[in-house]
């Protein structure tokens, strides 16, 4: 009897359902290779390249005052024009990107990493959960800008403050998300299976729970990065961010608005770059989110 049963099993692999299964599920990374994801990556890549290559591309130093060029409109010599203290706006914009890159690719990941850690700990050991959740509530209760202003009151304005604010804002976001997603994954039978074979809490967390909880966090990371560009912009706009003469996209826009009537072209260049960076990040996050749902 066993022989004939094995015969039944032989075509099993060619069942229509199984055919579906034999296709490897494309990882969510492949979403970055086409369509929206690719477009987003290209936009981000261009902005990042401009920022990194600023010393080579910029015609002037960001702080150099060019004699006789006061609020000159866009021209061959000054593509984005010059500002009220005779500095080349293109050069300042290119260097300004670097400030934003620092915020986007350093502050956000740091906030995310701490948030994920807190989320993991609090979802596994319940006594830490109560404390962590109430602290998150407290931070999330403040609108970002109010929080920024309050923090500036303590540490003074500057890039450091922007950093702190972004870490403080992203930490509870990632903490909450990690907690939710870990709570779902830890109920899965494969985590219990690891428990039964004698794996400890840390093993279960590291090998099973965390890797399977990462996808929503990745999507959130891209969203948070785009939000970080806005936070930097808003803080610098209010004068809480980077201090002059150091340029940043946000502070350039503020200068542009201040000179709106004399030099309407001023803010256009920096704005375009902010849009490109945010759009790129949002496209990537959307592509990742869609790939996850498939």
């Amino acid at each position, binding site marked *: 009897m066993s022989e004939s049963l094995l015969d039944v099993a032989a075509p*099993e692999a060619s069942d229509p359902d199984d055919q579906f299964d034999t296709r490897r599920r494309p990882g969510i990374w492949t979403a970055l290779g086409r369509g929206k994801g690719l477009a987003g990556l290209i936009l981000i890549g261009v902005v990042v390249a401009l920022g990194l290559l600023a010393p080579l591309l910029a015609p002037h130093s960001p702080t150099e005052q060019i004699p006789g060029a006061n609020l000159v409109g866009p021209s061959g010599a000054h593509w984005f024009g010059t500002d009220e203290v005779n500095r080349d706006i293109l050069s300042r914009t290119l260097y300004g990107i670097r400030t934003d890159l620092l915020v986007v690719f350093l502050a956000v990941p740091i906030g995310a990493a701490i948030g994920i850690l807190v989320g993991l700990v609090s979802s596994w050991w319940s006594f830490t959960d109560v404390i962590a959740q109430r602290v998150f509530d407290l931070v999330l209760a403040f609108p970002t800008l109010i929080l920024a202003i309050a923090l500036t009151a303590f540490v003074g304005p500057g890039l450091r403050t922007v950093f702190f604010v972004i870490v403080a804002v992203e930490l509870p976001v990632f903490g909450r998300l990690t907690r939710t997603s870990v709570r779902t994954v830890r109920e899965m039978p494969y985590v219990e299976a690891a428990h039964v074979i004698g794996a400890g809490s840390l093993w279960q967390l590291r090998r099973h729970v965390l890797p399977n909880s990462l996808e929503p966090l990745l999507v959130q990371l891209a969203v948070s990065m785009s939000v970080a560009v806005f936070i930097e912009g808003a803080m610098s706009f209010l004068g809480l961010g980077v201090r002059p003469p150091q340029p940043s996209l946000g502070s350039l826009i503020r200068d542009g608005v201040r000179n709106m009537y004399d030099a309407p072209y001023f803010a256009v260049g920096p704005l375009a770059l902010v849009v490109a960076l945010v759009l790129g990040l949002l496209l990537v996050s959307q592509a990742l989110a869609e790939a996850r749902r498939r």
Partner: protein
Amino acid sequence: MSTPLLEVTDLAISFSHPRPAVRSVSVTVDRGEVVALVGESGSGKSMTARAIIGLLPDGARATGSVRLGGDELLGLGEKAYTAVRGRRVAMVFQEPQTALNPVRTIGWQIAEALRAHGGVRGKAARARAVELLTEVEIPDPEERLGWYPHQLSGGQKQRVVLALALANEPELLLADEPTTALDVTVQAEILALLRRIRDRTGTSILIITHNMGVVAHLADRVVVLRQGDVVEAAGTRELFAHPQHAYTRQLLAAVPRLPEADDGVRVLADAPAPTGEVAALEYDDVSVHYGSRMRGRVLPAVDGVTLRLERGQVLGLVGESGSGKTTLGRLAAGLVPLAGGRVRVGGEDLAGLRGRRRADLRRRLAFVHQDPEASLDPRFSIGEAIREPLDVHGVGSRAARDQRVAELLDAVRLPASFTKRRPRELSGGQRQRVALARALTLDPQLLVADEPTSALDVSVQAEVLELFADLQQRLGFACVFISHDLAVVNTVADHVAVLRAGKVVEHGAAARVFGDPAHEYTRRLLDAVPVPDPTVRDATGPALHEQREQIA
């Protein structure tokens, strides 16, 4: 003879995937006839039903013809279909839990079904609802109209779903695995009810099922599907008596059976002779409670159970949902906190051990979950999954571990090339074999298997059971085997304990319990199992009816 009510000819359904879901299916259903569509997963039986009622998923392309009373249905617009759906063809789904709206009363839902087709309203609708509930034999129909789904049991919910389907007196009732989610005794009631509805109203029924017992019980004719093609179509008696196609024969042979009355071959002593050896597993007056005493609601899941499992033996735990069989199994694996009593594994109390000794005891324990899809980490390759227990306990060198993985894959009859694959690339049966291999990695003395085959097709189930029995004999581990399917337990277990509401109703040698049940509840459970033999149905028809009365 008049034209058949439903005529499906050369139905083919395909998606963007190169393999069509349904290749060529032709089925006819006469007025007042019950036809069963039988097949394993992937055979296209559900897709065929969906095509009939116009509920194909997006992206599906259907060709061929579906005629209902002479009218072509395939290719009808959504609007035209709405007039057919519910009115001429109605559907009963597998899971009554999700088919009913939890926030509306039964009465409201029936009234809605009537309203949808411009039927009666108000008082008349209420009267009709009472009539329908009477039709599906729900006691106190007047009162039940005001009830919500959660107040009803699973079987009663399925009755309400049936009432909804019957609301507009459809000519054809499609039933997609209508009893799969139900306990055996409830399944028997619903099957009997379906037959009576057919007899009373003359509604034709097309039932989709994988269960040969259900087919034998209910259907007049059977259509066997395999990979989108009709393999065989015949009258039920004829099909069971003389299956023509090899696949049908295999399907029938794969159905696990309970011992027949004259099956006196496996006569075993009832009580296992106490060997003086340490038992592999001992339950000593154990109880488990759910809920918290502080909130004042304590539900006993297991209530004073004492059982003993000798080394190298298989103990089957059977019972309906809520009987505590799963809790008892999880208890042995230390997954559930104990409220009272003692559980000893190999003579040692799991609860009394800490640290190293607890870890050592854990190594001798293994657990196989019901759903092989969810019990394997999707990110782990098969090799990594099987090796994990060795990694956790740091056993042997890297090469020795890989060697062990190869051995285990061989033991569960999977090719060595599977090490690199992911769970997703495997079929359900293959996945369950991987789960079995992982459980055996550390040479356990006790294996707890919780419904290990209920997510599998019959032929795959037969094969996994055979493999399991073979491994159990070769490796000699003791096993707690939990299943709601009495026939499955009968094929693997030496001893059986029948559970009901957390208590052991009867236990003893499997052949004795199933062949000559001492307790009335065991007998009722056994009687309710639909026997894959249509001649039995004709003999037991009235008996079943009586039994239903008894339960009600």
